[in-house]
C-alpha cells in the first residue's frame, strides 16, 4: 500500500512527540485504543485557565497512518479553544492526510483521543474546583 506524502512526512518527522506530567495542573490526558487491536494513542493537552489549548503532545503505538493522525492532531489543535477542539471531526483528518478507507479507523481514534483528553482535563478541573465555567460551557456545546 502506498502512503500519501503527508502521512510519510508526519511518520518521518512526527510533531510534538512526548509527554507532560499527568498530574500537572491544566494537563488533560487521553489514552484510547488497545494493544491487541494494534492501535493505542496517548494525547496530552496543556490547557490555560481561559480554556485555550497552549500545547499538545502525543505518543502512538500503531501503523504509520495512526502515528500521522495523532501527529497532525497535535498541530491542528494548538491555539484552539477547548470547544473548537472538541468539535474536530475525524473526516478533517482523513482529508488532510488522504487516508484510504482501510485507515479511517486511525482518524476515528485520533478524534476519540481529543475527546478523551478534554474529558480528563474537565474531570480534573472540576475536581480542583476551578475553571468550572469554561468546563461546563464547553460541555454543553460539544455534547
Amino acid at each position, binding site marked *: 500500500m502506498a*502512503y500519501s506524502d503527508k502521512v*510519510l512526512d508526519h*511518520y518521518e518527522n*512526527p510533531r510534538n*512527540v512526548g*509527554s507532560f506530567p499527568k498530574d500537572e495542573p491544566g494537563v488533560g490526558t487521553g*489514552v*484510547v*485504543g*488497545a*494493544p*491487541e*487491536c*494494534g*492501535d*493505542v*494513542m*496517548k494525547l496530552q493537552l496543556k490547557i490555560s485557565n481561559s480554556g485555550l489549548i497552549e500545547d499538545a503532545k502525543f*505518543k*502512538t*503505538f*500503531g*501503523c*504509520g497512518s*495512526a*502515528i500521522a493522525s495523532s501527529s497532525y492532531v497535535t498541530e491542528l489543535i494548538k491555539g484552539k479553544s477547548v470547544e473548537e477542539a472538541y468539535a474536530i471531526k475525524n473526516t478533517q483528518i482523513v482529508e488532510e492526510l488522504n487516508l484510504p478507507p*482501510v485507515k479511517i479507523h486511525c482518524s476515528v481514534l485520533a478524534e*476519540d483521543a481529543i475527546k*478523551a483528553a478534554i474529558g480528563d482535563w474537565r474531570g480534573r478541573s472540576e475536581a480542583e474546583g476551578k475553571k468550572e465555567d469554561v468546563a461546563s460551557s464547553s460541555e454543553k456545546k460539544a455534547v
Partner: protein
Amino acid sequence: MSSTSNGKPTQRVYMDNHATTQVDPQVVEAMLPCFSDKYGNSGSRNHAFGWEAEALVDQAREQVAKVLGAKAKEIIFTSGATESDNLALKGVVEFYKEKGDHIITATTEHKAILDTCKALERKGRATVTYLPVDKFGLIDLDQLRGAITDKTILISIMHANNEIGTIQPLHEIGKIAKERGVLFHTDATQGAGKIPVDVEAMGIDLLSLSAHKIYGPKGIGALYVRARSPRVRLTPQLDGGGQERGFRSGTLNVPGIVGLGKAMEIASRVMESENERLLRLRERLRHGIMSRLDEVFLNGHPMQRLPGNLNISFAFVEGESLLMGLKDIAVSSGSACTSATLEPSYVLKALGVGDELAHTSIRFGLGRFNTEEEVDYVTERVVREVNRLREMSPLYEMAKEGIDLKAYNWARE
C-alpha cells in the same frame, strides 16, 4: 545492495524470500531457448518442435523427481502450489468418497490448504479436523493418531511453515498414515528444494511444490502423486486434452517447467552449503537484533525451523509502522494492518502469541542472494527504527513505568 552511478549508495535489500525469490540467472538462461528456438508444444507428437519440447519436459520431470526421491512419472506439473494443493485435496475427496470424507490438517497451514478445506466443508463434501499446534508450531503426534477415524481418507500437514519456518516431523506423520492406511499429503512449498525431503523415507503420497520459492519462475509448480504402494488416484479438477496422465489438462508451460527443473537441480546441488550459510546469516541477524534490543521475542521453534527464517516480535512497536521505517528493506509483518482481513497473523495466534505481540511481528526471509553486509545493514536499521518508534510508543513508556499492560483498563470500542 547496489550503488548508483554518482557513488551515493542506494540501499535496497530483499529479505522476503518466503514470499518469493529472485530467479537464479542459471534458471533464466535455461529457460530462454524455450521462448526463441525451442518453442514447440510438448504435446505435438508429429514434428521436431514438439519432440524438442517434450525432451525438455522429460528432463525437468527427472530433475524434480530426483530431489524428492520419486520417479519421473509421479510428477504432475501445475501452475503452482495453490493449484497442487487444490488438486490433491479436492481430487482425493472426490475420488475416495466411497471410502470416507474425513481430512486431518492443522491450524497453521497455508490458506491454500485451509480455504480448500473450508470450501469442501461448505459444499458438504468433507469433514475436517484442524489439529492445534504447540507454542513452537508443531503438531502433536498423539493428537494426530487420536483424530484418525474409519472415515479418514487424507492427512495434510505442511513441510515447513511460511511464517515461522517450523518444520513438521514428516517421517513420523508418514509412519502414522501408513499404519492406519490413510493417504498423506504435504504442502512442501517452503520445504522442497530448501531442506531434504524424501517421499519414500517419509511415507509421503502427495506433495505440493512451487518454483518461485526456490529461485525459479512464478506460475509453475508440481504435485507429486505416488504411483505404487499405494497407487494414489485423483479426480482431475481441470478437464481438457488429458495432459499429465489425465490429472491436469492444459498445454504444458514448457519454459516454466524447464525453469522449475533447473531450479530443483541447482537446489539439490547447493542445499547443504547454502543451508550452512543461511543458518550462519540467520543467527548473525538474530543475535545482532536480540542482543541490542530488550523485549524482543522469537516466534517459532528455536532449532527445528527453515535456516533462512527469522520471525521476531518487537514488543510495543506495531509491525506496519516498523515496515514503513524500513522502506528500503523488503520484509513482512504479521500485523493486522498489513493483511486484507485486519486480523493479526492466524499462525502466530495458533502458537498462543497474544494479539498485542502478533501485531509487532516481523518475518525476515533470508535467501541465496543475501550477503553478510546486508544482514549487518538490516540489523542496524531495525535496531535504530525500533528504538525510534519505542520513543514514540505509549506502551513502551507505560511498561517502563511499571504499568501492567495486560491488567490495564483499555478504552476498547
